[in-house]
């Protein structure tokens, strides 16, 4: 995996009280990530690599593998939400 993921410029991750869920906001629209995906995206700070993110998630969820993190990130990269530094 090529480095450290972060949210693309112009993408924001926030919590929507009306819908009671995390939402990803960007110019083209709104995406609703599931709880796991939201947890991954919250850790995409452009400074941590996939292993570090997986390790940090492991303290909150059981049995998190680096592949799971990579899968989530690949999905969001396709949607132009995540990029790699």
């Amino acid at each position, binding site marked *: 995996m090529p480095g450290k993921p972060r949210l693309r*410029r*112009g993408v*924001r991750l*926030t*919590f*929507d*009280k*009306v*819908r009671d869920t995390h*939402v990803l*906001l*960007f*110019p*083209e*629209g*709104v995406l609703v990530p599931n709880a796991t995906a939201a947890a991954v995206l919250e850790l995409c700070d452009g400074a941590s690599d996939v292993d570090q993110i997986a390790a940090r998630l492991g303290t909150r969820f059981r049995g998190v593998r680096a592949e799971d993190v990579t899968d989530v990130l690949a999905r969001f990269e396709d949607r*132009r939400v995540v990029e790699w530094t």
Partner: protein
Amino acid sequence: MDVTVEPPLGMLAELTHRCPLHCPYCSNPVELAAKRDELTTEQWLAVIEAARDLGVLQVHLSGGEPLLRPDLPELVSRASDLGCYVNLVTSGLGLTKPRLTDLAERGLAHVQLSVQGADAARADLIAGAKAHARKIDAAAVVHEVGLPLSVNVVLHRANHDQVGALIALAEQLGADRLELANTQYYGWALRNRTALMPTPGQLAAAEPIVRAAVERLRGRMEIVYVVADYYEKYPKPCMYGWGARQLTVAPNGDVLPCPAASVITTLPVENVRSRPLAEIWYESESFNAFRGEDWMRDPCRTCDFRARDFGGCRCQAFMLTGDASATDPVCSRSPDRSVVDGILAAEDAAVRSGGVPEFVMRTPTVVR
């Protein structure tokens, strides 16, 4: 009605119809709202709060020219503080560095800048003002302030040949995203339709240029190409369904399911001054008129594509057939497709005979 109504995701806030430009393709209504009819700052702040309570997550501050409202910073702050993604849709005139720095500090997330042509000569002719150079400066300011930039170009006969140069310009301006939108015929654009309609030759020439650029720029600049729907076989999925995702608030507080909906004169018009926004969204006749599928008639009612395009655009159906619940006449399955073909034939004949009319430039209606 058997439709679950979801909360809206976005609000287009048309803060004013005033504008320093005179684009003949402008989708604003021909009857522009006068300054004295605009909502006050307090009223706009209340609209933003009501919209967020209702579920709105994206606020597009547009117009006219939103920078003409001196209260723009306050409105940005409120929308952003409430957790909305705030997008400024602007001609760029008046977008100075101090102003944009302030807006960015208040939480502005994104700027969408319109460009009329690839060079000043052409662009200023279309805009009806010396605007192009100031837009280039505005793009530089967006860059310096560090906000993401979308460039928006409306395509028509008078600039379609520049599509390659427009893509190059957007690259030069450092755009993250370029929207090349063929003119949608509402408002001033409908009035100028004959002068704006691209020729089939222009559309065919643009297609490979756009396709190649999409490939070449993948990952650097996203290009969205909006097709010329009169030439298509099927209609656009207008607004992703009526009253489904977005609402528009016009300068005077009228609340519309889409920016063009005021043309449907058979629908009552709701206004934030007289009814709460949530009630308008969930209960009003105008927002419920074309939700779901119950309103559909043949051929849409039984068509396999109805979940994909929702029967097309209600405003276009009304403008071209006089009936807002008709199938969008752009659709090749519509019994009224001959109306669109007739328009294309008449426009083609006008081009051939050299009888293309001059642009009627956008100007405010004189208030008596």
